[in-house]
């Protein structure tokens, strides 16, 4: 197998970054330390120094691919750009990874294992499966609401519906259409998996709640906004 073909089999890590100047550098470094050579970061129109930090990282790590949205379009749009880039580069496995340092690069191996073995096409990380994460009570309530909402609208009962840590096979990445630009994309991905009968499973992962990550998390108001948008979109179909 050629070097290029070997690299292609290695997972592509796709990260959407919006105003993450404080964390994105260390996220890229931690991924590099774990030996991941295909990292795609999409700067989603950040107004801080995120792009500058990424450009500095790209000088240090030649494997880093940096794309930049001219204006902020949302995590869903940025992930779709990153996934499209990864597919164009020949990715066979794509991992979506958060830019705020909540995800543990050491857990990528266990996340992609079922996809590598061909057992499923999608693996969804779940912070509730093994209770390793120290989830704030309020956040837990909001997430449980999201699980209920997804159960009602997609008919699928999952343990964690808004976890950005997920692995997709090339086939699944091509099948799943992300039309929602902002945070609603997480629900849309699950909707697509159910509609298109894409084989998937959940795997326990750790979400690290630092003060920084808590600051950047979703508010209740945002969660209600997401739910309303999803309902309106269903009406418009």
């Amino acid at each position: 197998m050629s070097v290029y073909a070997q690299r292609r089999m290695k997972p592509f890590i796709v990260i959407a970054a919006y105003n993450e100047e404080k964390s994105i550098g260390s996220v890229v470094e931690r991924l590099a330390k774990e030996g991941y050579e295909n990292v795609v970061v999409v700067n989603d129109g950040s107004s801080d120094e995120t792009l500058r930090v990424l450009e500095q990282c790209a000088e240090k790590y030649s494997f880093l691919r940096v794309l930049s949205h001219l204006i902020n379009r949302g995590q869903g749009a940025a992930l779709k750009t990153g996934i499209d880039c990864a597919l164009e580069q020949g990715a066979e496995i794509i991992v979506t990874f958060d830019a705020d340092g909540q995800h543990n690069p050491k857990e990528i191996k266990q996340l992609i294992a079922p996809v590598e073995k061909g057992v499923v096409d999608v693996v969804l990380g779940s912070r509730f499966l093994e209770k390793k994460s120290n989830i704030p009570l309020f956040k837990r309530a909001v997430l449980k609401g999201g699980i209920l909402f997804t159960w009602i609208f997609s008919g699928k009962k999952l343990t964690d519906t808004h976890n950005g840590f997920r692995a997709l096979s090339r086939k699944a990445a091509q099948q799943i259409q992300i039309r929602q630009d902002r945070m609603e994309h997480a629900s849309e991905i699950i909707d697509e998996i159910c509609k298109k009968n894409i084989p998937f499973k959940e795997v326990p992962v750790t979400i690290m709640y630092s003060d920084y990550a808590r600051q950047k998390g979703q508010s209740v108001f945002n969660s209600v906004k997401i739910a309303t948008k999803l309902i309106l979109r269903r009406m418009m179909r």
Partner: protein
Amino acid sequence: MLDLLSIAILFFVLFAWSRVVLRFKEGGIGFKEFFVWTLIWAVVVLLILFRDRLGFLTKFTTLQRPLDVVLAGSIILLFYLLFRIYVKIDSMDQSVTKIVRELALEKKRKK
């Protein structure tokens, strides 16, 4: 005989319609939009001029006054138009995202 308020509304309608005609002449709106807005303002004029003959409207509803029927109908129409505007804005939003994403990918391909 028309009261002062009805005359004022008629003048406003005439002014509003003149803006529609101007926009159509400038090419700012197409014939379809010109026709629809002319129809809307024509209906307003008819409602004002023949308001005494609108009693039949209350026969189909539980509302007492013809004006209430007109108001209720207008609110429903406004909600529908709001929904159409939401759909249009959402569609434009998606188009903007498509352009932004494609520009980012194209810049990457050229590197």
